[in-house]
């Protein structure tokens, strides 16, 4: 039965080894199992030997499979577990080889110089077996010593494994080898010393070790099969992911590319080539790629990429590409650089996305915003229309009267050319005055792109005051200005800043007008330099802002006026923010509200 078990194990592992040729542990185990089977067979036939010579032959040849088992076990421990000292392994193997040599060269075998007779022995079960009796071979002690060497090797290996944190199953293999080998040594010693009447049963002590080893290996095989399954599953998942990724890339219309910096060659997926208008076969170099760009964007992109290559981090940017048919498309690119160990750039890879639609939408939005701002400005001017008409009418009235006066003077007999000369000068002055009004209006009503330029905020204030003075006078509101001298200039759009001031002044005058009991109220405008910013304050003597309203006054569509749209202040804040400034409101402790805005000073030195 034991033979059958061993042979089965031998076959099983031989089979596994045949399938997985690299798994030498299986061959070792297979050989061990085969050898153990042979040993069992031989010991069994030894117990039933008919004569002395037969037993002596069996006892001699049984050392051959023993040797094989011995070496295979050591190999197994070293190779499969990867532990054990090499010199111990060689020592044990050497000793065992020496034993084999002794076995075949001295006496009848390792144990006996000469077997004199066979001794029948009744074992359990009532069966009769024979055991050898005779003169012991003095060299036989080398046998147990070699086994002890094996035990030392295994114990040492198990200690190493334990320190490395090997599994309990593995340690069990070592322990069983150690224990049964020691048992074999003791058994051998006792039999040979004549203290125990028993046949040699060394092979039996190998069985548990064999089974333990086989268990470990089989367990590993099972596990590797399981791992293989998992691997297959994850490979399937990976493939799915790849498919999903490919789908996403094609759905998102991403241009995926990789630039071999060393050989200056760019690989791109088909979509990428299509996006940049480069035919499928054509080799792409960096300069070829640059050639597809809008000429205004080339220098900047090259500069940024050079910075990246010099170690300035990954490149991200937006640029325009001119397709072969002349169409202009906007792209955004995100890329990553790889360097070698000497910090030389190796590869740059990334994705490029066509963002033309988004860009167009954003530009439309800016246009929309400009339109809204313009509309708000036109509405503001609408509020001033009466005053503006008056502003224009006054010089026209003066011109007409002057011209008619001149006609009359010229009709007189004594023509007064001096007077006429003066009149003409006045007409020219009034004409200029009217033109200035129109110019101011046209400036405020224009709908151009925003134009940033260096401005003296005091001049902007003065212009706006001219515009609103008459309107405020009509409402019995005076306007006072306290303008700081030698203010630094600011960078801004004259019209937009005028719009903000106009809005704040008209808001202030509405607030002032709402306080009916005050006969004469005023709006004050102050400018000053506050650190690195130029600050402008528009204050009124109205009722101030309630705490509840204070949180909302800059929100769109919030208004306290019966006919207000509620866009003025929210647009003002947007405009000031676009100038990198701030706009806020505070209540004046003496009553009324103060609106402040700041603009970064353009020059640190004074004018």
């Amino acid at each position, binding site marked *: 039965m034991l033979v059958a078990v061993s042979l089965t194990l031998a076959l099983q592992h031989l089979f596994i080894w045949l399938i997985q040729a690299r798994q030498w542990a299986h061959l070792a185990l297979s050989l061990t199992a085969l050898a153990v089977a042979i040993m069992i067979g031989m010991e069994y036939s030894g117990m039933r030997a008919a004569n002395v010579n037969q037993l002596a032959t069996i006892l001699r040849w049984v050392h051959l499979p023993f040797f094989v088992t011995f070496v295979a076990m050591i190999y197994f421990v070293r190779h499969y577990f990867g532990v054990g000292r090499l010199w111990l392994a060689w020592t044990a193997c050497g000793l065992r080889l020496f034993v084999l040599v002794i076995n075949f060269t001295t006496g009848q075998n390792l144990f006996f110089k000469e077997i004199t007779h066979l001794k029948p022995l009744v074992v359990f079960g009532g069966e009769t077996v024979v055991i050898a009796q005779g003169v012991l071979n003095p060299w036989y002690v080398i046998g147990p010593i070699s086994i002890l060497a094996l035990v030392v090797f295994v114990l040492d290996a198990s200690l190493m494994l334990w320190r490395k944190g090997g599994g309990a199953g593995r340690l069990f293999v070592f322990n069983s080898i150690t224990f049964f080998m020691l048992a074999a040594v003791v058994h051998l010693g006792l039999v040979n010393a004549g203290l125990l009447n028993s046949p040699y049963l060394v092979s039996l002590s190998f069985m548990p070790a064999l089974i333990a080893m086989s268990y470990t290996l089989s367990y590993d095989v099972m596990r590797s099969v399981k791992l293989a399954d998992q691997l297959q599953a994850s490979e399937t998942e990976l493939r799915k992911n790849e498919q999903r990724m490919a789908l996403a890339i094609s759905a998102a219309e991403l241009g995926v590319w990789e630039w071999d910096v060393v050989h200056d060659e760019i690989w791109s997926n088909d979509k990428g080539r299509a996006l940049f208008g480069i035919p499928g076969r054509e080799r792409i170099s960096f300069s070829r790629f640059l050639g597809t760009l809008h000429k205004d964007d080339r220098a900047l992109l090259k500069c940024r990429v050079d910075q990246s290559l010099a170690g300035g981090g990954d490149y991200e940017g937006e640029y325009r590409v001119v397709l072969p048919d002349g169409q202009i498309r906007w792209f955004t690119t995100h890329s990553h650089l790889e360097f070698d160990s000497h910090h030389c750039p190796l590869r740059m890879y990334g994705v490029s996305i066509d963002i033309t639609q988004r860009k167009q939408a954003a530009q439309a939005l800016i246009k929309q915003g400009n339109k809204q701002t313009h509309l708000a400005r036109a509405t503001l001017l609408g509020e001033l229309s*009466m005053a503006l*008409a*008056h502003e224009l*009418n*006054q*010089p*026209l*009235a*003066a*011109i*007409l*009267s*002057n011209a*008619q*006066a*001149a006609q*009359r*003077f010229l009709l*007189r007999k004594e023509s007064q050319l001096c*007077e006429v000369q003066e*009149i003409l000068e*006045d007409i020219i*002055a*009034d004409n200029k*005055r009217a033109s200035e009004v129109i110019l101011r209006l046209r400036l405020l009503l224009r709908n151009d792109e925003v134009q940033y330029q260096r401005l003296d905020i005091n001049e902007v204030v003065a212009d706006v005051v001219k515009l609103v003075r*008459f309107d405020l*006078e*009509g409402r019995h509101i*005076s306007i006072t200005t306290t303008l700081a001298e030698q203010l630094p200039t600011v960078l801004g759009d004259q019209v937009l800043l005028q719009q903000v001031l106009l809005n704040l002044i008209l808001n202030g005058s509405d607030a002032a007008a709402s306080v009916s009991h005050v006969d004469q109220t005023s709006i004050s405008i102050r400018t000053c330099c506050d650190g690195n910013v130029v600050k402008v304050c528009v204050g009124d003597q109205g009722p101030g802002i309630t705490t509840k309203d204070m949180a909302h006054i800059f929100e769109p569509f919030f208004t306290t006026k019966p006919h207000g749209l509620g866009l003025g202040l929210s647009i003002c804040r947007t405009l000031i923010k676009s100038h990198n400034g701030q706009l806020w409101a505070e209540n004046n402790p003496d009553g009324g509200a103060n609106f402040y805005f700041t603009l970064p000073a353009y020059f640190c030195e004074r004018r």
Partner: protein
Amino acid sequence: MNDSIATVFIVDDDPSVVKALARLLRSAGFNTATFASAEAFLALYDKDAPGCLVLDVAMPGMNGLELQQALIALGSELPIIFLTGNGDIPMSVRAIKQGAVDFLTKPVHDIDLIAAIHEGFKRDEITRQARITLNGLQQRLALLTPRELEVMGHVVSGKKNKQIADILGTAEKTIKIHRAHLLMKLQVKSLPELVKLAEQLGVVAGTNNLFI
């Protein structure tokens, strides 16, 4: 008073407009005086100076319509010609009702303005003449004794001498003497003339106190 030359007073806050208007009116032969604000005009206002006022409506501080009210409050009858850049109808109606000569829109044509000024001067002349006449009558009325004034009241209300004598408890002859005296003092020759004069002076019949 009467012999001083009629002047066109021009009030407008816009210096170039004031200058141009004054120049135009001078070229048309008018005597002009210019003021930069309603307040400046009020400060120098002389009730006896003849002429008319060319007044801008929209001005800082006191505006044109407010100046009109202030002048009325002072008992002035100076004719006013309003000038405005953007006068609306209710505003002009109100101004005219308060006695304004005209309400002209800037820029104003010389012919319209000059016509309005002539009209203003005419009105000023009339009111001034009326005032002079009234002043003469009042001086004559002041000559009457209280008794004569009392009799006059009854006479203009159409009572006979006898009736008056009964009311006043005196003889008819005495009333006749009073009557003759008051006709002489008031320089009227007939009863209808006396009635007309009483109307002009606002003498109310049946009262002892007669007021102008």
